């Protein structure tokens, strides 16, 4: 105890600065017993604090005391992101009256306390993969297993459509490698008939690089489908680290074929500190230079699944990626060109649109509109969310905005550009293909419009997923990226992506995991009716 004398009376100031109070979890407890039943997982009081210029997650664990882990690299940028928040949308809980706490509540799907609807429904349709990446969060394998029957995938999607009042913004097909699903083409056909604005395909591109039939399938669905192509960088060592093989020529070939086929593609970069965090600018440059590449999604490596262990005291983070944009792109893209995705938790995603002017220069929509004006537009969105006439209005506004935007440079400063941004935000996470879908219905020159957009609009997103070192309950509750799961009672439901990846008992409820456990009694030739399947585990 310090003696209380003279000028030292009273308590000194803290050495850290508390930024916000949070509910978190103990990574030490988690590592000790990864299979711990979810109702025994402790929710811990904690806070985010700034120290030495960076942001740290501090929580108190009854067993391990104060546990501190690295949360973000730049407090200033994190504060900037927190300005961009818009009201979220109403959701329908999977289980009525489910007030179970996080994370055990997710065993019964989305609970009553979830505060965001499903923007993206992620469906793991197979566990099989033709790569075995050391940094895979899905723990996939080369064996043909965990193939979800087509009827079960559609059953999960249809149930979510019903809960989302008849429309889904985005369905993301993932795995494993989803293109290996034996009925992949049929699945895409079936999705085309449903009210799904955009279908994203998460793929490593290995099959796409040489399978003409698959490319044709994607080309047929290209007004609805966008490819999310794993693209970690340009160096051999990067691929050896992340993918265990030098895949550069395959990636280049897959990208070229997609671009030639006019299929919108987003380069998905898994970035790790000291591995390829210096290649972010190079990947963005590839996106800017390649027609029909809609943009880049940069995902700092996180420590769930089969990931290589992450240093709890030093990692690549959301703001770390943002901070690197300017220096690595020669100032073409900076962190001020992005905003937090307003409808999600501000720490969970940032997004920015880059547009090529008639002079051939890249400018961000944010810089054209101005930060303050953009905030005003976002306010308007909030007031209109309950308006059921929005889809029609959106169609007209986006159409006008796009046509005006792409016709002449002067229109770039017109208010309708702001409306475009507003509409992008209103529809949560819509990409280029969906804008086209909204804009192009009445225009005979849709192909020309596609080509122009494919060359002149690029979207850059940073998507930091959480592992136990960064997991916050409030981010889970506001999460809108939901994974299709099945309850113990064999009912379709879903749960936040990061929770499903981090907690094994939740991971086992993924559709592909359930299918994998049933594989003992189900041959790989798919069965038409899932009710006929005997559950073996």
């Amino acid at each position, binding site marked *: 105890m310090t003696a209380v004398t003279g000028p030292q009376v009273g308590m000194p100031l803290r050495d850290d600065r508390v930024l916000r109070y949070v509910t978190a979890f103990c990574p030490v407890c988690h590592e000790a017993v990864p299979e711990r039943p979810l109702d025994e997982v402790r929710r811990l009081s904690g806070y985010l604090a700034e120290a030495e210029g960076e942001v740290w997650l501090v929580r108190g664990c009854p067993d391990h005391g104060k546990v501190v882990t690295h949360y973000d690299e730049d407090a200033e940028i994190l504060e900037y992101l927190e300005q961009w928040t818009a009201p979220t949308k109403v959701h329908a809980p999977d289980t009525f009256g489910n007030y179970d706490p996080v994370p055990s509540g997710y065993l019964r799907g989305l609970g009553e306390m979830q505060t965001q609807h499903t923007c993206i429904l992620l469906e793991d349709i197979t566990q099989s993969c033709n790569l075995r990446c050391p940094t895979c969060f899905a723990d996939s394998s080369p064996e043909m297993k965990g193939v979800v029957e087509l009827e079960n995938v559609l059953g999960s999607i249809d149930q979510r459509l019903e809960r989302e009042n008849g429309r889904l913004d985005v369905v993301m097909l993932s795995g494993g490698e989803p293109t290996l699903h034996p009925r992949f083409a049929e699945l895409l056909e079936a999705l085309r008939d449903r009210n799904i604005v955009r279908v994203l395909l998460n793929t490593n591109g290995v099959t796409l690089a040489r399978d003409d039939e698959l490319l044709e399938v994607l080309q047929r669905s290209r007004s609805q489908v966008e490819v999310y192509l794993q693209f970690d960088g340009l160096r051999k060592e990067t691929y050896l680290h992340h993918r265990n093989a030098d895949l550069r020529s395959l990636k280049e070939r897959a990208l070229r074929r997609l671009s030639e086929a006019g299929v919108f593609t987003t380069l998905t970069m898994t970035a790790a500190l000291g591995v390829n965090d210096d290649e972010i600018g190079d990947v963005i440059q590839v996106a800017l230079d390649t027609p029909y590449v809609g943009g880049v999604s940069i995902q700092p490596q996180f420590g769930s699944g089969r990931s290589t262990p992450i240093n709890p005291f030093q990692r690549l983070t959301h703001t770390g990626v943002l901070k*690197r944009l300017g220096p690595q792109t020669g100032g073409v893209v900076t962190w001020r060109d992005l905003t937090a995705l307003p409808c999600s938790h501000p720490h969970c995603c940032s997004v920015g649109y880059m547009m090529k002017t008639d002079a051939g220069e890249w400018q961000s929509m944010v810089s054209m509109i101005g930060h303050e004006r953009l905030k005003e537009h976002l306010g308007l969105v909030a007031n209109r969310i309950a308006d059921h006439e929005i889809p029609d209005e959106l169609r007209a506004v986006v159409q006008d905005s796009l046509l005006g935007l792409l016709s002449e440079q002067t229109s770039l400063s017109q208010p309708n550009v702001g409306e475009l941004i507003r509409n992008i935000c209103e529809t949560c996470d819509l990409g280029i293909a969906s804008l086209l879908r909204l804009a192009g219905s009445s225009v005979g020159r849709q192909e020309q419009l596609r080509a122009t957009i494919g060359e002149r609009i690029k979207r850059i997103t940073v998507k930091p997923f959480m592992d136990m070192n960064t997991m916050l309950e409030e981010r889970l509750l506001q999460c809108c990226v939901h994974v299709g799961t099945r309850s113990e009672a064999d009912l379709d439901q879903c749960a936040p992506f990061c929770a499903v990846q981090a907690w094994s008992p939740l991971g086992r409820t993924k559709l592909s995991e359930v299918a994998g456990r049933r594989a003992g009694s189900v041959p790989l030739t798919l069965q038409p009716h899932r009710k006929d399947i005997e559950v073996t585990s």
Partner: protein
Amino acid sequence: MRDRAPAAFGDVAPLRVPDGLPVGATTAATADTPIQRSPVTPAGSAEYDPLRLCIYTTIGLISWLITPPLTVAIFGSIGVIGYWRARRRGLASSRCLLGDTRLVIGYLALAAVAGAAWTVWTLVR
């Protein structure tokens, strides 16, 4: 590489910092950071399972009991089939030293044929 929380937080729980992780020497945005391969260890399984050593011994034992060329013929054939299927599913590059799966298939086929020929020659001579 940083291996502890800032002193501002006082006494905190010690956390495991994995060895050999490719973290850059600095957090500088433009630093040309060194690249190191990290150990490929599944998350949550800190104990190394030397399963392959058991497999190699078993193969050696079978080889000893059956005759080496025949074992080569059998395992070579199984390997060709396995890699052929994997390639059809899109596996272009193997962790095998040869890398390209076509090379691996060629090597295994050659070994299988040699093993079969040697076995036949042993039987008929």
